[in-house]
């Protein structure tokens, strides 16, 4: 059964379409809602989807350890994953027999919770971590220099149990259940070959990756990602996002490196901080997101402007200054992070923050120097803790249905 078809049927047959074998469709005011026509992102293409794709609203990120020693089993699994991913991004069930089409004696091939839901712009983006390139699968010679482990930054409180991983999958969608369904089914297909090391749910994209998107806010209440790299800035993307021929091993040409950082926000102390101090720490005004040196959100910050006492209007320790390309040899990132709230901790504090994701051409020249500077000087550090860290090499996209994730790497 094709999930999208169910929707179409429901749309045509109105309320009565929720007959046996189909699923009731979410409705507003008693009317079934047909999905917008643009709810499917092409899985195949020159680049992996889920990088410059306009950031969807929901995330389920998962990192796996490979537990088999058998390279052929790993390659087989990647092939099965690719087939399932291609189907799920089209709004179909994970396997051809689906959730209810198989033998009654067999566990269903698809777990079923996305029946009746649209594709919801689902993207599945794969990355390979530094640890995959050890002696197990003969990949040492294929390890890109740019995939060097991230250094320990000052103030890091990284928990290894929720960091790293041999393989990651970033699932983004506009429906959280669609993203969770995708990760759950991939994890199931991978049983015995990979084991989930950690995973993270996110909501409310904290960056825009397209000029068509408004800038969202993070849980500090500030607009985030105003100065992000965007899909329309093609020449900047070539310089800062996509790996070029000659940068490293061929299998990564056209790909990008992903850094993940789970950044816990110390919400309660932040909320007790005055508006003035919050804006000083960030370097932007909270209402519009304008740099303190300007008036509109997209005004370029002017770090030279000084106020009445001769102090810089944008403080030397302000986040926007320290992170800005002009202060970092032009280094830019494509950020694609999400807010997270993992309930509350045992002390009644919100266990919340930013699951930071950034794509780039070479972390050694981009994320690492920028984060080194932030870790040393950013006033925001008083209100945040980096608790998890990940680095993954995301190869270019798959051009055709006979290609599969990792083929050129394992060839």
């Amino acid at each position: 059964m094709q999930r999208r078809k169910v929707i179409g049927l429901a749309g045509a047959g109105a309320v009565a379409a929720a007959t046996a074998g189909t699923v009731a469709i979410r409705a507003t005011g008693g009317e079934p809602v047909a999905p917008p026509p643009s709810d499917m992102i092409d899985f195949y293409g020159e680049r992996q989807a889920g990088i410059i794709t306009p950031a969807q609203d929901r995330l389920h990120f998962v990192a796996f350890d490979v537990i088999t020693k058998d390279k052929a089993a790993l390659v087989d699994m990647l092939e099965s994953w690719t087939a399932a991913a291609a189907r799920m991004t089209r709004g179909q069930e994970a396997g051809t027999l689906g959730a209810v089409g198989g033998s009654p004696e067999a566990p269903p091939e698809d777990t079923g919770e996305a029946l009746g839901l649209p594709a919801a712009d689902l993207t599945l983006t794969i990355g390979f971590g530094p640890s995959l390139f050890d002696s197990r699968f003969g990949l040492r010679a294929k390890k890109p220099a740019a995939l060097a482990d991230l250094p320990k930054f000052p103030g890091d409180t990284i928990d290894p149990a929720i960091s790293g991983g041999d393989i990651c999958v970033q699932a983004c969608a506009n429906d959280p259940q669609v993203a969770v369904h995708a990760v759950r089914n991939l994890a199931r297909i991978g049983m015995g070959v990979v084991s989930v090391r950690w995973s993270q749910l996110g909501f409310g994209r904290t960056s825009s990756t397209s000029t068509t998107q408004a800038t969202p806010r993070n849980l500090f209440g500030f607009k985030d990602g105003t100065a992000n790299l965007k899909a329309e800035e093609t020449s900047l993307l070539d310089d800062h996002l996509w790996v070029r021929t000659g940068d490293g091993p061929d299998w990564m040409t056209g790909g990008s490196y992903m850094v993940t950082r789970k950044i816990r926000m110390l919400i309660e102390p932040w909320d007790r901080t005055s508006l003035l101090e919050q804006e000083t720490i960030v370097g932007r005004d909270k209402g519009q997101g304008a740099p303190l040196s300007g008036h509109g959100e997209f005004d370029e910050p002017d770090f030279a402007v000084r106020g009445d006492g001769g102090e810089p209007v944008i403080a030397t320790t302000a986040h926007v200054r320290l992170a800005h390309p002009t202060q970092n040899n032009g280094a830019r990132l494509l950020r694609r992070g999400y807010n997270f709230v993992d309930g509350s901790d045992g002390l009644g504090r919100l266990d919340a923050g930013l699951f930071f994701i950034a794509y780039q051409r070479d972390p050694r020249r981009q994320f690492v120097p920028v984060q080194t500077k932030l870790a040393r000087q950013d006033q925001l550090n008083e209100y945040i803790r980096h608790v998890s860290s990940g680095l993954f090499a995301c190869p270019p996209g798959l051009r055709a249905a006979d290609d599969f994730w990792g083929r050129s790497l394992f060839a």
Partner: protein
Amino acid sequence: MRTPRLLALVAATAAAVPLAACGDDSGSDAAAGGSGKITVDASDTDCKVAAGQSDAGTVTFAVANKGNKVTEFYVYAPGDRVMGEVENIAPGLSRELIVELAAGTYETACKPGMIGKGIRNAFQVSGSAAPLTEDAKLAQATKDYQRYVKSQTGALIDKTTEFVTAVKAGDIEKSKALFPIARTYWERIEPVAESFGDLDPKIDAREADLEAGQKWTGFHKIEKDMWVAKDVSKSGPTADQLLTDVKTIVDKANTVTLSPVQLANGSKGLLDEVATGKITGEEDTFSHTDLWDFAANVEGSQAAIAALRPALEEKDPALVKTLDERFASVEAALGKHRDGDGWKLHNTLSQADLKALSDEINALSEPISKVAALVAGK
């Protein structure tokens, strides 16, 4: 010869063959099978089987335990399919195993201390045997498993009796030692036991399972007495009730014939037990002897799959290969946590150890979940 005739009968009437026709009670017919009794001298380090081959038919092994550990004796077909076994042979005792063997390659095994793969010897059976039809193979599977249940329930009663006796004698150390051993036989056949609604909770309810006001009986009540109260002086009535309930459930279990699909689901169910109760340490929360139950669940799961093996070999040999590899892998992973004849306590395992075991169980459970549909033929 007896064997082909029997098999032909099974083939003709498929699942309707009454259990009375199967091997365990066929000792009187031994002459038809060829050889006489084969003696087995079992010690703590050796397993001397007097003959390495036999004609097809009924074969009788006379097993003498000359060691200091309780032992077991098995005859395995390829893939560790149990053709026959005697459990719980105490030091100094002799027991007989009468087993019906068609022509083929087998292995015998003594298991001093009742652990691991045991001391193996090849055993060759010659003669002719008609190949089984698919239906006959499935009918044979239920019969083989029935025999397994019978051997396990026999040992369950013996070991529960020893345990109950020790509890009532106030011997708390001996009771503690026997607790996980008696439970082993229970855990191996738990899916069968669970089919008898109210008896299972009477025997095996955990404190957390109880409803408000519900009377708590069974293994885990005594477990708490032994490990928490450290006093079994008032545990006698609970112990007596446990033995009564175990005997009742054993009587019922031995009248049940599981269908091939039930066998397949049982093998999966046992692994689910591991995944939900043993990995987490919830099963034996006072004694932390969960790894005994873990091992027993896996062994029980493997026994059910082994019974189905001839049918599975025909339907999906690749799946059989995968199951063999993954059972071996689970066994190896669990083997790292052996402690003498027993197992390390659950609370001494690290989170990483438990994750590794959990991965192994997941890796095995996925292919096992495919078996039921295969044997159902859909």
